[in-house]
């Protein structure tokens, strides 16, 4: 996704002379092409996240379309109030990028954990929240961001995530149907809801489940705001169990959105959440260990679904 992000930046800069990219001294050899091709549009502002947000505010007030970039924990947490006051209060079209959201940097320790990034940004009314799960989602959603004029926060994962195919196109604010279970095949009926890169684990899990005769439906929520309530409404009325798989605290991410909507609905669907707990995670585990420990890896998703069958 990181490569798709830098490639799309160049693609946008080629056609949109208002795009300016500011990095908080991160992205070693990731933005070389942008810097080479559009040297005035690449600015290393130094390790100064507040300055990134304030400078983007001034640029956007002057008609530019800034993109600001740092590690998710610093970009959202360190600069929160500057984003809130400068960018969001004034509803300026700045794209705020958090590299390595969630537990992408799990083994770098708590300083680099960003399991609250989506929540922090989502607390601000008017801020769009984008959590792509594949290189194509990064590209498409970025291009769509530049077609409108509101602020957005986007998580960008690491390098090398695979592409996947889905039945629905990639549209900002709309959930994507990745695969649909054949009707009445499996009891109870189950829908998996993924966000960000948990889409990949859900696809793998779904394959394994199918091999065992358990067919589940899978939607990807790459946008948490605007939130696709219409699709959720259908999911909650059509399925017995809805399983949310997220790399975020249970507060402020996809589960928050789903559970608060569910609480106000007449749905009898049972909700399950797979993801990290609302706890400080010491000991610098690897992301794979964490996902296994809290059952949001492939085998955790499979066993959670199989347990429902009994």
């Amino acid at each position: 996704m990181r490569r798709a992000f830098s490639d799309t930046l160049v693609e946008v800069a080629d056609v949109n002379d208002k795009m300016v990219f500011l990095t908080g001294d991160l992205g070693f050899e990731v933005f070389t092409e942008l810097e080479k091709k559009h040297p005035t549009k690449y600015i290393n502002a130094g390790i100064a996240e507040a300055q990134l947000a304030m400078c983007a505010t001034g640029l956007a007030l002057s008609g530019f379309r800034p993109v600001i970039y740092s590690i998710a924990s610093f970009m959202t947490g360190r600069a929160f109030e500057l984003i809130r006051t400068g960018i969001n209060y004034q509803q300026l079209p700045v794209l705020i990028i958090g590299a390595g959201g969630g537990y992408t940097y799990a083994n770098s320790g708590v300083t680099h954990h960003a399991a609250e990034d989506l929540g922090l940004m989502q607390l601000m009314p008017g801020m769009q929240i984008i959590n792509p799960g594949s290189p194509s989602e990064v590209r498409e959603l970025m291009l769509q961001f530049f077609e409108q004029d509101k602020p957005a926060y986007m998580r960008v994962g690491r390098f090398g995530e695979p592409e996947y195919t889905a039945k629905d196109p990639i549209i900002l604010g709309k959930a994507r149907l990745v695969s649909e279970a054949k009707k009445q095949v499996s009891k109870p009926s189950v829908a998996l809801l993924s966000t960000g890169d948990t889409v990949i684990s859900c696809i793998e899990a779904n394959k394994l489940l199918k091999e065992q005769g358990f067919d589940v439906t899978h939607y990807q929520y790459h946008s948490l705001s605007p939130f696709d309530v219409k699709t959720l409404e259908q999911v909650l009325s059509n399925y017995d169990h809805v399983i949310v798989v997220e790399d975020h605290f249970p507060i402020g991410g996809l589960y928050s959105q789903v559970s608060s909507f569910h609480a106000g609905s007449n749905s009898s669907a049972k909700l399950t959440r797979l993801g990290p707990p609302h706890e400080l995670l010491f000991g610098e585990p690897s992301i794979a260990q964490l996902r296994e420990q809290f059952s949001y890896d492939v085998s955790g998703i499979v066993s959670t679904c199989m347990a429902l069958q009994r």
Partner: protein
Amino acid sequence: MMESGLKRLAATWRATCLKMSRVGRHGHLSSSLGYIEVLAFLYKRWLKLAPDSEGPSDKFILSKGHGCSALYVALADCGFIPVESLSQYAKPGAQLGCHPCKHALNILETSSGSLGQGLGVASGIALAQRLSGEQSKIVILLGDGEMNEGSIWESLTFIKANQLNNIIAIIDYNGVQAVGNTDRIVGGTSLEKKIAAFGWHTQTIDGNDFAQIEDAFSQLEGVLDQPKAIIAHTRLGIDYMNVESALWHYRIPSDEEYDSALAQLDAEPIF
């Protein structure tokens, strides 16, 4: 000659701020009164307030947003907003809020009210101008208390490193913060030396003295290769009220104080 006209104007603007504080039942009076001379010089003599064939209009950003009643008076007196709107200052739903809001008053360069951000926003405006191939003066008025904020020092560095030399920061050094004395809170160092150490051209003046203000700004015209800062030592402008100045961050003048202040100013509000 120029001075006596501006002095009269400053007295009138002060009287207007005093009345606004009373009709809007809002404090932060001292935060406005101290920098009136600087503001009057900028708005009446120095800033290019409309775009012309040589480029865009100059920009003024009030970073210390709480001191906005003076800015509203300047905008009204220069014809940018109706004079009558001053009577609505700080009232519910008013265009002229107690912290400037761009949604309500679009002619502002930016909303402000949270400290330490005006300089960073200015850096973005200056960068946008460079990318667009145009340039104007960009003046930011900051409070001395506001200089406590770390974000300011990120911006000072960035502006110097990127040679955004059309930026002029004015620090309204009135010596008083919300609940304390600036020099006591962050004392032991010289603001001028600190800013100079960041590579900025700096000057320290008496910010209530028009001759010194004019002299400082004329010197700036010759400084092309550095961003510029003027540390303007100001008095809260309410000396004539005989009260402890720190109180005036929050207080609203009483009938007697108001009458007495207007008499000593020998001026009337513009609304």
